[in-house]
């Protein structure tokens, strides 16, 4: 029974929903709900990388750039053009997808270290643009984001945002799980293992990689837009190299290619600094140490390791 559940496609979704319902009962304070909402948002961004890195095997060290793009869309759209913030959330995602489509082809032709440095460079350039175009972005201090109103209701308060972000993550997880089990997901996983054999089977490797890159960018931009709207603020820091690294660390620590892993990894890296606020000076050292320790001693990540252990125990 448990073994079957571990293998079922939507088991992750039910587990996630159960956790989402349980958290407000177990931790009924605005502070905890806010932290949890941040976890859901970063998990959503990480899910994009799960598709790109976990399924298709293509690393992106500049993914926070798309996160920033989504955030600034929600900030700039209403402030400069008087657009509806919710519309801007979607516009930002579309913009990120379009940008990923444009730069994706040449970038994704690269492999290994070359791909890593190209995506890294792309992300850094985006962050620099947000940093420098002060007239549009408010410069290093960032800009305020107008409050979001949906059908006349203002989205405010930790509980509201908790459910909005939880819903977004559930949808994101639903789509990622569908992709994984579909012909597209199979093609992505195939080219991850052998591009030559995938192409030999008729898979247009370049196009599939591009699709994964665009989808990953859209996930990140949605997450960025939600984050900005929730915080009422966006700064260039959202798009920083450090944030890109944290996103990659989330998917790897949680378990590369695992939807639940992306959530666990996000929870890990979001909650940990909160828990360490007492020892704030140690935060960076601990983060660096954790990344190293996980990469060296638990390369498969938390969720796949646990899952394997459970399955072995059951059989």
């Amino acid at each position, binding site marked *: 029974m448990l073994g079957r559940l571990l293998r079922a496609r939507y088991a992750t979704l039910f587990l996630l929903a159960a956790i989402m319902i349980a958290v407000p009962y177990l931790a009924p304070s605005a502070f905890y709900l806010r932290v949890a909402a941040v976890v859901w948002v970063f998990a959503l961004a990480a899910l994009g990388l799960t598709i790109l890195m976990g399924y298709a095997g293509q690393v992106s060290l500049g993914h926070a750039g798309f996160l920033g793009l989504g955030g600034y869309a929600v900030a700039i759209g209403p402030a400069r053009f008087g657009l509806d913030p919710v519309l801007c959330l979607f516009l930002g995602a579309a913009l990120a997808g379009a940008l990923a489509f444009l730069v994706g082809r040449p970038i994704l032709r690269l492999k290994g270290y070359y791909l890593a440095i*190209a995506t890294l*460079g792309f992300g850094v350039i985006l962050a620099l643009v947000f940093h420098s175009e002060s007239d549009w972005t408010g410069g290093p201090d960032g800009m305020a984001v107008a409050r979001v109103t949906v059908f006349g209701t203002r989205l405010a308060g930790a509980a509201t945002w908790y459910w909005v972000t939880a819903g977004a993550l559930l949808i994101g997880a639903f789509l990622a799980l569908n992709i994984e089990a579909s012909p597209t997901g199979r093609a992505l996983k195939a080219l991850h293992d052998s591009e030559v054999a995938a192409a030999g089977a008729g898979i247009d490797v370049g196009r599939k990689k591009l699709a994964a890159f665009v989808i990953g960018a859209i996930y990140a931009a949605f997450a960025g837009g939600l984050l900005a709207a929730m915080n009422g603020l966006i700064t260039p820091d959202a798009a920083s190299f450090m944030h890109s*690294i944290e996103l990659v*660390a989330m998917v*790897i620590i949680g378990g590369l290619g695992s939807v639940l892993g992306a959530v666990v990894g996000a929870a890990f890296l979001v909650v940990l600094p909160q828990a360490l606020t007492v020892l704030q000076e140690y935060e*960076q050292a601990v983060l*660096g140490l954790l990344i190293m320790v996980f990469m*060296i001693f638990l390369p498969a990540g938390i969720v796949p390791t646990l899952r394997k252990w459970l399955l072995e125990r059951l059989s």
Partner: protein
Amino acid sequence: MAEFLQLVFSGLTVGAVYALVALGFTLIYNASDVINFAQGDFVMIGGMGTVFLAAAGIALPLAALMAIVAAVIVGLLLHRLAIEPARGASPVALIMITIGASIFIKGVAQLVFDKQFHSLPAFSGDAPIALGGATLLPQSLWVMGVALALFVALYLFLEKTLLGKALRATAANRLAARLVGVNVTIILALAFGVSAAIGAIAGVVVTPITLTRYDVGTLFALKGFAAAMVGGMGHPLGAVVGGLLIGLLEAFGAGYISSTYKDAVAFVVILLVLFFLPRGLFGGRTVERV
């Protein structure tokens, strides 16, 4: 013309530092196939270490020497504790390990040192030297001179010494090197140690010009990495040319276009090189085997 010359001077000065960082990358990459993102942090350790040791009353040359030794120890520890245990990991995992190491080193640096910018007195005073209408800081000569000396020393080491030859043999074919009796583990440790020393020395000489802080390593690493790749990953000469090229382009970009995007230059260059010359300026073509 004077402005042009001025930009060339400043470009070559920073470029020399990028070249040294790129050289460190290349050395480690050749020996172990690892791209060491913590390379820039050796530069920081060299600079910050010297600053704090000098502030503690130690004579500058001795302080610099101690800082360089400290960087070498960090480099050796990095190899022993993080790279060795992860042997055979994927490129992405190795990247993440060295990035983790870099974050860790920065985290420890802000505890051991502080979060402020620091400088060192210029080695031979601050009186600018007039040259063709432009001015050159004596410290720039130090940077370029030390960089040149390091290039020559490294060249002689790799070409003329037995240890250097063993390192090159390991780079060319690790298994074959092992078979002819090269102790590969020691060679890899050597590569990390020498890279750390090169980075730290660069940090000592450049600090009087650019200032230093616990987190300056990131940009040095990224630009040095870009330089190494522009030159074609794994080519020492390419690393040097790439470093100088990026330094010059950065200076020209800042001088003639806008200083706002000075830091973007390296990345625009790297993207263009990767798109149009995926193997870098000096890299050969490789054929995928199936």
